[in-house]
């Protein structure tokens, strides 16, 4: 069922069992899981069904730390959320990512990869991937042209990714949500406050507003915050009437440990002779799976490194290396944030790439004829308390303080990228594949600075991190906010560490796990 919140009479009260705030990948995945359930699910979405400049403007924010992408272009504020832009790269986190690693401060999830596996398998279907198979040998069996480069697996391994079409949740699941009789979707329903009881151990309701000035209330048994990592933190911090530091923030953790994947060119590879590279090259829109190079667990342990992968694409880096943020400038994306009537369909990454870099869309030959490759990393950053989302002084059109992002990195982040590339370079020579040249920004070991093309992957993670102890995490292993009986968080904000896999598959898996937990709660 769909209701346009602008058409409700002012001060309406809506009641239900579960209230999901935000209809992006996480919120929609959960709502779909409750279809045909007896419970009444209220799904509040701040935007409409299309991209609108005034909605995007609610996402504008301040950047104070490392240079970052404009916040109003780094996520989307309408039904389907940021899946309207995402590129569909999917992989599960590695088992090691969940473990406590002595060399990675604040590492260690309270859940294991094994516990998430069944949910990953279901998440695969929601983003229209193939089988839940990430073992390279599975893909080698599917196609004789797909073979791994001859690295010693003790040192360098191939981590597989699968590619979603990419599923645009807004288009794909709109009908299912609108037609689900127990799911009540409200569009233009921007939550401005989550209200707790006096002792701040339970949520009494949420207030949502329309840009036109109406305000309404929702009362439910359980509340799930699913607005994306920056917005989840912002809403908790802004809900400060009874808890002056914000909800769930007794230990000053909400908004902290913001993480990104560092995505930048790191090196060039010259191959000694042609190798079959079908496993590693990407034809955007066609490739179902591809491998990236990662260091083995043993190597990561031995050298005390963060997890990171390196992808190959034909051609060199050129005179001025560019990270993802420079490759897809905000202007290109913002061009599409006009009023809906004037909106051409959003470009997906492949279209931008086509205009920008035709070389990556050419079919990849089974045997590489190109001998020079650009190597780009997707690297985990270590959880850093100083890297945070807080509230700015400026307010949006609904009176909610805007987000302020202070993205920070640590020494181990650059060290890990450099060392990993160095090891990969040595292993590339050792295995007779070719030679690697590290880019200038990685050569000087004493240089702790980041180059101006520092980039992330628009992967916002970690602002309500998961930990068993309230002093170390905002949510517990069920994604429930410590100390508050009925408030849960869905999305990558619950990630304790980031791994090197793009976050959406994992955030859907953790959301489905939370959904299952709530079903059990409702039963009991």
């Amino acid at each position, binding site marked *: 069922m769909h209701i346009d919140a602008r058409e409700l009479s002012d001060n309406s009260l809506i009641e239900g069992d579960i209230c999901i705030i935000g209809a992006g990948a996480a919120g929609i995945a959960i709502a779909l899981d409750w279809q045909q359930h007896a419970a009444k699910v209220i799904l509040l979405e701040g935007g409409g069904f299309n991209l609108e400049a005034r909605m995007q403007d609610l996402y504008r924010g301040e950047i104070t730390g490392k240079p970052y992408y404009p916040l109003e272009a780094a996520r989307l504020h309408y039904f389907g959320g940021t899946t309207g832009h995402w590129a569909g790269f999917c992989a599960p986190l590695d088992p090691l990512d969940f473990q406590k690693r002595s060399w990675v401060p604040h590492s260690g999830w309270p859940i294991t990869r094994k516990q998430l596996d069944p949910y990953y398998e279901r998440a695969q279907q929601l983003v229209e991937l193939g089988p839940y198979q990430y073992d390279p040998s599975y893909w080698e069996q599917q196609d004789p042209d797909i073979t791994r480069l001859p690295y010693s697996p003790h040192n360098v391994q191939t981590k597989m990714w699968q590619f979603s079409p990419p599923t645009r949740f807004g288009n794909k699941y709109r009908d299912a949500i609108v037609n689900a009789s127990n799911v009540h979707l409200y569009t233009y329903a921007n939550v401005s406050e989550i209200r707790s009881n006096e002792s701040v151990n339970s949520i009494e309701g949420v207030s949502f507003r329309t840009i036109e000035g109406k305000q309404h209330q929702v009362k439910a048994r359980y509340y799930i915050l699913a607005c994306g990592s920056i917005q989840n933190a912002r809403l908790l911090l802004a809900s400060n009437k009874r808890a002056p530091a914000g909800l769930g923030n007794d230990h000053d953790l909400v908004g902290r440990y913001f993480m990104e994947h560092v995505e930048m060119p790191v090196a*060039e590879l010259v191959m000694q002779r042609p190798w079959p590279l079908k496993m590693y090259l990407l034809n955007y829109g066609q490739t179902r799976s591809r491998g990236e190079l990662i260091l083995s667990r043993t190597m990561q342990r031995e050298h005390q490194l963060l997890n990171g992968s390196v992808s190959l694409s034909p051609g060199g880096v*050129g005179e001025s290396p560019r990270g993802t943020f420079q490759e897809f400038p905000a202007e290109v994306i913002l061009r599409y944030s006009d009023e809906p009537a004037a909106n051409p369909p959003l470009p997906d990454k492949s279209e931008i790439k086509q205009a920008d870099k035709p070389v990556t869309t050419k079919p990849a030959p089974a045997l590489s004829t190109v001998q020079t490759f650009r190597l780009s990393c997707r690297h985990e950053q270590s959880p850093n308390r100083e890297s945070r989302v807080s509230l700015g002084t400026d307010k949006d059109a609904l009176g909610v303080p805007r987000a302020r992002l202070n993205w920070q990195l640590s020494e181990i982040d650059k060290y890990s990228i450099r060392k990993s590339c160095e090891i990969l370079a*040595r292993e590339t*020579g*050792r295995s007779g594949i070719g*030679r*690697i040249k*590290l880019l200038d920004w990685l050569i000087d070991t004493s240089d702790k600075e980041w180059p101006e093309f520092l980039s992330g992957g628009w992967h916002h993670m970690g602002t309500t991190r998961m930990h068993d102890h309230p002093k170390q995490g905002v949510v517990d292993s069920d994604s429930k906010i410590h100390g508050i009986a009925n408030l849960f968080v869905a999305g990558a904000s619950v990630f304790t560490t980031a791994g090197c896999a793009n976050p959406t598959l994992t955030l859907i898996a953790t959301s489905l796990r939370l959904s299952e937990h709530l079903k059990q709660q409702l039963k009991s």
Partner: protein
Amino acid sequence: MNRRRFLISTTGLLAVSQPLLASFSTTTLDPATLAGPELLSFLGDREYIVALGQCYLQQFPHEASITTLSSKIRQQAGSSNTHNESKQIARKVARDFANDETILLNGWMLSRTEARQAALFSLLHS
């Protein structure tokens, strides 16, 4: 230094590397042969290899003589004729990588033997 000029593009690769390789294989067992790095010719043109070699010599100035470098490259590589010698050197390069005898030169991760070949090349050509 303009790296783009030196990095060989796919199309430019053969054009640049053929004359370079040809100049390496004219004599037998002489320094010019030893300075004929099999793979270095894929990395860049003459000027680029010279620069790589100079970078090595800055780090190891005590090796900055044709005799020293020739003998270090030959050590354990064995030598009989040009053909065998290049095979022996290739084996030595592989051994270097296996034994972590590697060096980062201007960002390139090279075997110590390759780096010395570049250094010898630079002494012979600059």
